[in-house]
């Protein structure tokens, strides 16, 4: 999965996407089926992914919407 698809720009990943890729990447590294230069590449991407996750966690802001009939409207509740 990691090998075959062109990796997406980390900055555009949602938290879930980044987290899922990070997990599969750790598993790939632990299975040790890859050439050395590729494991280095995987490791670097893993670093970027975990940074992305941390940034998303640090900047997260609770999103609140209200159901208005059939529509969702953003609301602010302090």
């Amino acid at each position, binding site marked *: 999965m990691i090998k075959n698809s062109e990796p997406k720009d980390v900055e555009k990943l949602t938290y879930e996407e980044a987290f899922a890729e990070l997990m599969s990447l750790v598993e790939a*590294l632990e299975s040790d089926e890859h050439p050395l230069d590729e*494991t280095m590449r995987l490791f670097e991407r*893993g670093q970027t992914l975990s940074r992305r996750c941390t940034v998303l966690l640090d900047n997260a802001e609770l999103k609140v919407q209200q159901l208005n009939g059939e529509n969702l409207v953003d609301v602010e509740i302090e």
Partner: protein
Amino acid sequence: MNKGMLANMYPTSYLKGTLSLSVTDLTRYLRQLMESDEILQDVWVQGEISNLTRPASGHIYFTLKDSGASLRCVMWRSNITRLKTALQDGMAVEAHGNINVYEAGGQYQLNTDSIRSKGEGVLYQEFIRLKNLLEAEGFFEVERKRSIPEFVKRIGIVTSPTGAALRDMINTLRRRNPMLMVTLAGSAVQGEGAPDGLVSAIQSLNRLVHPDLILLARGGGSIEDLWAFNDERVVRAIVASEAPIITGVGHETDFTLSDFAADLRAPTPTAAAEMATQVSINDIKVQIGEIYFQLVVAIREIQNQKRSEMRECRNRLQNCSPARRIQSSWQGLDTMTRRMITAQRHRLSLETIRLHGVVENLSSLNPLDVLKRGYAVVTRSPDNRLITQTEQVEVGDQLTVRVKNGSFPVQVSGQDQERK
């Protein structure tokens, strides 16, 4: 029967009017009569409070009235602490307790242990009826309840859009996990339209938003205020909900039928929001840290493995190199030389020892050396023949004895018998 009871206490002459009872006797009799009556010892009485007084003793005295009669009531201090609402004159209530007699005042009174607002009893009856009905349908079975998901992304909230409960829940969710998406489906939470509003809010959330979880909540209030959460329609909507529901209705002590039907009951709205976020953002951060650590360990292990493979290969290569072979030839030569020298040295010292031995033997053969140790050489005087055997001498023979530093003559004076 009462007559029999009285007859047991007093002689019949009192009953026939020939003798009179004292007031105390009669009052005590009335007291015993009332206190032995099962109904009067465990009774709910409804009426309106009047003449409410609270003396410094802390006890409460009041009168329960209706259009036809009045009843003196007393409530002791120890029971007052259990009252949910403060009593006031004019309040319609239901009081529970037992009837006793205050002998000094000649009054019977309700010794009150609890008071609820009027209508509460009816509501409670209805509550029990509905609870039994829904219980029979299996709505409250533990097996029916869904588990609350550990990781939640979208949470639906059903409550009043203006209530404090909403603010409490939002603040708790924001603090615990700001990654959440929250959808509010507002509804009245008390009054006539409340049950329908709650039902349609639950249904709309499930149909339009598909949340992972719904919080159904309301702040504290009287039992009437919370009544919508005992409504059969609301209970059925909870059971039918696609998303699991956590209720947080009223305070710790309030239990509604919605609470029984919910997948999880929280004591308050805030607690409901906490239960909805079992995994907080801090937990997630810790998890990310752990995964990063795993990543570092994995890459380090790969590097270590490659490094040791490489080292092993290098060793094998070095073993095959000609330099190594020459080195080993040199070493062989050195070893041989060393062995040769050692052997030679060994041989030399062996020869030296042997030589010493020979010299020593030689000196032990010198006969003069023997004389040094005290031996003597005996010869016959005329012919100098060496005497080695007794047969060689006769009594009277002249012999010469030679010792270390010279010789002297001797004569044989006798012959020993012992011969060999």
